[in-house]
């Protein structure tokens, strides 16, 4: 750009003297040398260049700034598929399967993308119910950490490769392998088994090994001895009047919780107080499990006493001399009483145990046999196949691996390097395996140690089937085309087996249907043509065939010396599975990570549950004087961990408990490094048992930085002994004049929030509550705005009924609500600051005896008050009442004064403190969940899960439960299009459809005689805080327990 013609440096330059020119050249070459030495571009340029560049820069910036922000246009279909109407959801029946977890589901898709999971009422297993895990499974489809293409490890660093490269490498390895092992969790898919058979046909030296992350080996082995098959019975809690559970969390995590919850609840609910009946449920445990929290009586035994406790019951029911020494006297006495009551309920009872000890399980089988429960409440013909893992096989596999005799190991989407008791041995052995292939969904502790990774589909992208119980089948169908270059497990196996699938567009569909054609189609007579059969089954999602034959019980010799002997140690720790995390399978699901634990109400980490006692004066004291959120050193089996504690009411003195499934090291952005891993402590002499008696607990090391617990006050009038030995209301006693020491346990408890009673006092309680209601209604009728309610007598008037006797606290509704309503996840720090955004929460209160309390779960969402205190205080009319009795939020109008939230007596309003939805233009205020690079939801993949019918809220506005107003609109339209009156069944809120027990009923108050109206006739009903005249639209029922007061343990 330089123009030197008219510019000269002095006379010498002007006259072009040679001497000068040489000098100039030298200088130039020197400059060149300098510029080549310096890697930076030389900053040559003169004033004019500067001006030119500046001019261009300013001009360009001006033009660029004047441009429109690129508009992303939604382009209509050129040829619209018949089945897709924009704005109208399609539902497809499918099945959620993850290891042993099973749920028959309907998948809601909008414009071709799955956004919500609903239960399938056609299923005879899950009966329309769902679990939190099922609800959250749709989010994992859009997991940013999932594998997107095949991976190859190069010294532990993974790089991408193509499928053909991978297939070639794997097939080369397989064909030269002397011993091939497939390792998986429980498989309940006939199609997968078929694929493995086909795989075996090609490679004869293949063995399949299955295990379960939380072992059922003991029970399965015992059943094998008693019945000849490694299966679990089909428990029928709907037929059981008396339930004894030895540590089995059958409502939360154990075997088939959705199914059990439904059946269990049917024996717990009552229409009204007249002739009310309910089952009795006794839970024998040390840690308050979710199932235990629903029990009428809890018999407290230390984890190591479980065997002796079973033995005690065995002796009393079956008659025998199983060793019970070391069992605490209270439990002995209580179990003797329980045995008597069980005998009275023979054939109408269930005894279950989570023990992993074969001989203890054999005793349980013998007890059930003696009570003639088999064939009545426990069916072997329709036995459950939801857990079939075999620890013995796993151990021999690990031995072989360590011996170096396994040449190829294919890990089928399981994570033994983390979630089995022998993980350290497994990891050691893995290094001796020549070829290690992981068929995996996302990176985990095992897949990162493998050589090759074959990424697998999400179940929402796959074809498949499942057989959770003998005679019950269900189909899995894809609801979206594969998002990434992944392949479903069966296809991967078949391709490695050399099956040619190149000519088939949907090879797995063909494979599945062929399989069904040959087996199930032949077994039925309803459909004549196969197409008809498979299309109908796909539509329904499920298929029932005749169950298997009844298995007969045969007495197996019980070796009593193998029954666990109670340890004589001061402190024991038990390890338990949580609803949200399993044994770590769900760590990378933010919805589940953020979901507060039903019992502890904590999230984002496993907290050591410690027992609490009342000091007789004004304090609820934790073990070792520890308080909520204190960090503490705990030494288990000689290894020291640092964990934060939570004071757990109902935790047996002398025991503590810590959840499995945390402390993962390879679990993606959300799950890595949250909590501590306790799996290494579960191996005891080759038997997986979920406790340790070798525990020392230190004292407080200070507070955890972000103690994330959403509830600080836990009790509702618990009774305990005061210093004078009198039984007092500890909550009210704790209000004593001791400045500041009362802390959070201390309250006046005569509140109209929840009412609880024993079944035998139900009549009295109903009278008391009705009396209180009458008083409140009288006062409310004296208001100055009379005739106010007349408004809602015409048209719709939406309302809800929540049956506290049906609610087991499982939290499926809370996750469903997050999914339906685009509720953001906020992360550990924000939860610790009580910034959680859940529109629906389940409050949990303990009542009764402080050291062995009962529990009431209280689902709390916006009550849609017809005299709403939030509405009149909003200065800008951002929250208002609809003509149908809904309390509406107008996000666009909301300024964010939070006055409405302050004035909400139910504290259900949530404020967007920061940019939780990552919707702001400037990403300066997006909190991260776990220190990840891109905040959760800031990427397009995660945002695919958003429900397009619900606004994503911006920072600074209030939000809250809308009674799923988008569903109401849809229901109204349906009724209108069909030219009929709306029925309650047309409008179901997300929480209602998610609930496995039917605790939530939504409907129209004005539909007399319909579902909601029927529920409102019960004399157990009450309205929370009725006396403050806010006119809530949500009705609750009195919580009834069937505690036997004479059982004290």
């Amino acid at each position, binding site marked *: 750009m330089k123009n030197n013609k008219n510019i000269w440096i002095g006379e010498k330059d002007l006259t072009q003297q040679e001497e000068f020119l040489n000098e100039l050249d030298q200088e130039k070459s020197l400059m060149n040398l300098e510029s080549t030495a310096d890697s930076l571009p030389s900053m040559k340029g003169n004033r004019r260049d500067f001006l030119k560049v500046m001019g261009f820069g300013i001009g360009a910036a001006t033009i660029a700034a004047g441009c429109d922000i690129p508009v992303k246009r939604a382009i209509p279909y050129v040829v619209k598929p018949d089945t897709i109407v924009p704005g109208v959801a399609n539902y497809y029946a499918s099945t959620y399967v993850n290891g042993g977890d099973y749920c028959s589901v309907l998948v809601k898709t909008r414009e071709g993308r799955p956004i919500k999971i609903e239960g399938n009422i056609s299923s005879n297993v899950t009966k329309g119910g769902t679990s939190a895990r099922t609800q959250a499974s749709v989010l994992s489809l859009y997991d940013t950490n999932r594998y997107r293409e095949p991976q190859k490890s190069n010294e532990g660093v993974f790089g991408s490769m193509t499928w053909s490269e991978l297939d070639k490498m794997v097939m080369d390895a397989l064909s030269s392998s002397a011993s091939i092992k497939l390792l998986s969790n429980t498989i309940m898919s006939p199609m997968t088994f078929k694929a493995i058979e086909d795989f075996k046909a090609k490679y004869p030296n293949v063995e399949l090994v299955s295990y379960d992350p939380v072992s059922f080996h003991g029970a399965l082995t015992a059943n094998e001895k008693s019945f000849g098959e490694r299966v679990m019975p089909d428990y029928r809690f709907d037929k059981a009047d008396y339930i004894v559970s030895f540590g089995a969390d059958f409502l939360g995590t154990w075997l088939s919780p959705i199914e059990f919850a439904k059946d269990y609840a049917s024996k717990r609910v009552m229409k009204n107080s007249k002739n009310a009946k309910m089952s009795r449920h006794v839970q024998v445990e040390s840690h308050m499990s979710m199932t235990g929290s629903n029990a009428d009586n809890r018999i407290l035994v230390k984890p190591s006493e479980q065997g002796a406790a079973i033995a005690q019951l065995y002796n009393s029911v079956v008659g025998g001399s199983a060793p019970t020494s070391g069992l605490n006297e209270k439990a002995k006495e209580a179990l003797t009483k329980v045995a008597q009551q069980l005998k009275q309920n023979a054939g109408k009872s269930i005894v279950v145990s989570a023990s992993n000890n074969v001989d203890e399980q054999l005793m349980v089988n013998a007890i059930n046999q003696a009570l003639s429960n088999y064939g009545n409440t426990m069916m072997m013909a329709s036995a459950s196949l939801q857990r079939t893992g075999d620890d013995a096989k796993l151990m021999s596999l690990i031995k072989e691996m360590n011996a170096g005799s396994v040449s190829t190991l294919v890990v089928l989407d399981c994570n033994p390097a983390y979630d089995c008791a022998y993980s350290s041995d497994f990891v050691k052995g893995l290094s001796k395996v020549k070829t290690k292939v992981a068929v995996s969904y996302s990176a985990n502790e095992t897949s990162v140690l493998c050589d090759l990774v074959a990424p697998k589909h999400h179940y929402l992208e796959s074809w498949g089937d499942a057989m959770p119980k003998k005679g019950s089948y269900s189909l899995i169908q894809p609801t979206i085309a594969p998002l990434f270059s992944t392949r479903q497990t069966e296809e991967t196996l078949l391709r490695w087996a050399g099956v040619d699938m190149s000519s088939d567009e949907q090879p797995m569909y063909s494979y599945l249907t062929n399989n069904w054609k040959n087996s199930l189609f032949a077994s039925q007579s309803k459909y004549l043509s196969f197409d008809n059969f498979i299309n109908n089954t796909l539509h329904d999602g499920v298929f029932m065939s005749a169950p298997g034959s009844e298995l007969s019980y045969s007495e197996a010799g019980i070796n009593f010396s193998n029954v666990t002997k109670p340890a004589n140690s001061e402190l024991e720790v038990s390890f338990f599975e949580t609803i949200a995390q399993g044994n770590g399978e769900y760590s990378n699901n933010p919805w589940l990570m953020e979901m507060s634990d039903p019992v502890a109400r904590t999230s984002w980490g496993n907290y050591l549950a410690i027992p609490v006692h009342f000091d007789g004066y004004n304090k609820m004291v934790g073990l070792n004087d520890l308080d909520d959120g204190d960090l503490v050193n705990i030494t288990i089996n000689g290894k020291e961990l640092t964990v934060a504690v939570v004071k757990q009411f109902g935790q047996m003195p002398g025991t503590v408990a810590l959840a499995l499934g945390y402390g993962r090291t390879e679990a993606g952005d959300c799950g890595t490094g949250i909590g501590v891993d306790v799996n290494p402590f579960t191996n005891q002499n080759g038997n997986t048992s979920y406790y340790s008696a070798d525990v020392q607990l230190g004292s407080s090391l200070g507070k955890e930085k972000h103690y994330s617990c959403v509830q600080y006050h836990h009790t509702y009038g618990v009774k305990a002994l005061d210093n004078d030995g009198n039984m007092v209301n500890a909550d009210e006693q704790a209000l*004593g004049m001791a400045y500041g020491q009362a802390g959070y346990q201390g309250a006046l408890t005569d509140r109209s929030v929840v009412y609880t009673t024993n079944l035998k006092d139900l009549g009295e309680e109903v009278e008391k509550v009705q009396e209180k209601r009458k008083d409140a209604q009288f006062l409310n009728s004296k208001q100055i705005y009379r005739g106010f309610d007349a408004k809602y007598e015409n048209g719709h008037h939406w309302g809800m009924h929540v049956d506290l006797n049906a609610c087991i606290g499982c939290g499926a509704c809370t996750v469903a609500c997050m999914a339906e309503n685009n509720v953001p996840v906020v992360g550990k720090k924000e939860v610790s600051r009580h910034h959680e955004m859940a529109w629906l929460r389940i409050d*949990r*209160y303990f009542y009764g005896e402080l050291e062995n309390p009962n529990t009431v779960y209280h689902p*709390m969402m916006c009550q849609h008050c017809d005299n709403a205190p939030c509405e009149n205080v*909003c200065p800008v009319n951002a929250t208002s009442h609809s003509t149908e009795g809904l309390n509406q939020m107008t996000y666009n109008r909301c300024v*964010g004064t939070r*006055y409405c939230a302050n004035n909400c007596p139910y504290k259900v309003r949530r404020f967007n403190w920061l940019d939780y939805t990552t919707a702001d233009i400037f990403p300066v205020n997006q909190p991260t969940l776990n220190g990840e690079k891109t905040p959760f939801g800031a990427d397009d993949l995660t945002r695919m899960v958003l429900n397009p019918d619900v606004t994503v809220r911006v920072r600074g*506005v209030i939000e809250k439960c809308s009674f799923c107003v988008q569903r109401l609109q849809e229901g109204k339209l349906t009724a209108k299009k069909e030219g009929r009156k709306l029925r309650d069944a047309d409008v179901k809120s997300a929480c209602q459809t998610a609930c496995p027990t039917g605790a939530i009923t939504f409907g129209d108050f004005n539909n007399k005689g319909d579902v909601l109206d029927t529920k409102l006739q019960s004399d157990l009903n009450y309205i929370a805080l009725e006396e403050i005249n806010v006119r809530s639209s949500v009705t609750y029922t009195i919580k009834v327990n069937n505690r036997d007061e004479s059982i004290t343990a």
Partner: protein
Amino acid sequence: MSVHVSPIREPLVTGHKTYHQITEDLVSPTEKMPNLSWVIGFIISLTLLTFGLFCIFWTIWVGIGTWDLNRTIGWGWDITNFVWWIGIGHAGTLISAILLLFRQKWRTGVNRAAEAMTIFAVICAAIFPGIHVGRAWVVFYFFPYPNTRGPIWPNFNSPLLWDVFAISTYFTVSLLFWYTGLVPDFATVRDRAKGLRNKIYNTLSFGWKGSAKHWQRWESLSLVLAGLATPLVLSVHTIVSFDFATSVIPGWHTTIFPPYFVAGAIFSGFAMVLTLMLVTRKVLNLEDYITIEHIESMNKVILLTGTIVGIAYLTELFIAWYSQYPYEQFAFFNRAVGPYWWSYFGMMFCNVITPQLFWKKSWRRNITLTFFLSILINIGMWFERFVIIATTLARDYLPSSWSYYSPTWVEIGIFVGTIGIFFTLYLLFTRVAPVVAIAEIKAILKSSGDQYVGKNATHHDEH
């Protein structure tokens, strides 16, 4: 000025001042270079102000999440500070309006500064409703202006909206009142000034000439404004108290709040006037105009209002017990012995015990003690608002939702920043306007100057 003054009245202007001396004493601070203490004070105030503005910017930029409020406690330091500042403003209005109507001559020594304080306090207060919201950029939704959204009007049922009107009215009337008083004084400053300064003050004084007609109109306007402002003394804090009283939250939902808040506001306002004036009179050598007599009078007001506040506290406790309503009872248990017991204790000590010391005359007239106690009262009244707002919200109906709250550096920064704003404005005020109303002091000189009344009087009333 031949009004009869009782011989037992203490003089309100001491030092045998002449009219000229008064002018010299009161105008000179605006004419001299500021002294070192002023400069240091100004730098500190300006620093705090800057930090406060940064914290406000941070709040708006990042979000209310920079504060530690939570799902249970939606208001904390923000509204506590708001109510506190509004309360402080009340003394100025009381002095200028009600005491004017009651012809209390001692008001003249302090009314100018007190009114200035009112305005600055209201400015500080008005910041909080604007920035405590989640979306500060749409606060204009508060105002009832014609718009294209329907039009949507604000919700006239909402006490927050009443606040908007109450505070804007209050600010307007207070500003008018203050400025009206300043007009003749600005003229006095102008008369002594030359050049540009003369022009500026001439404009500020609206060309005041001091004619009889001017004085007559000025007197009438003052009276009219006093009449307007008098109900405001009662109404503003009454409406602020409605923010709480009209709610359903136990501890807020109470009919005692309006009088209790008004008494509290005057109480805290006088405490702040004392804090300021005790420093001002010392620094600007105004001991002859703000005498012990003035201080004692204000201490008497503090004693009265402090006692009213104390009775209100005890009444609340009594009603909680008497109502036998568990939520109300628990709300007060919670205040006294709950996790925030220290703030209740601080409030009770500072607001109930402290003012009772003023029953003793010598203590009322003790400057050191008065200064110390006035600070305590300011703290106590801040605690009162904190107790009412944060403590009440922390634990209401549903035990499941109880929570705890402590402020972040941003919240503390904003509070400190408003103190910076307040003092920056006040210090500037002392440099541009006479801190004591010259015209009004001159008006009472003949009836309350120490050469006319009291022990050392040399001119005696002939009547």
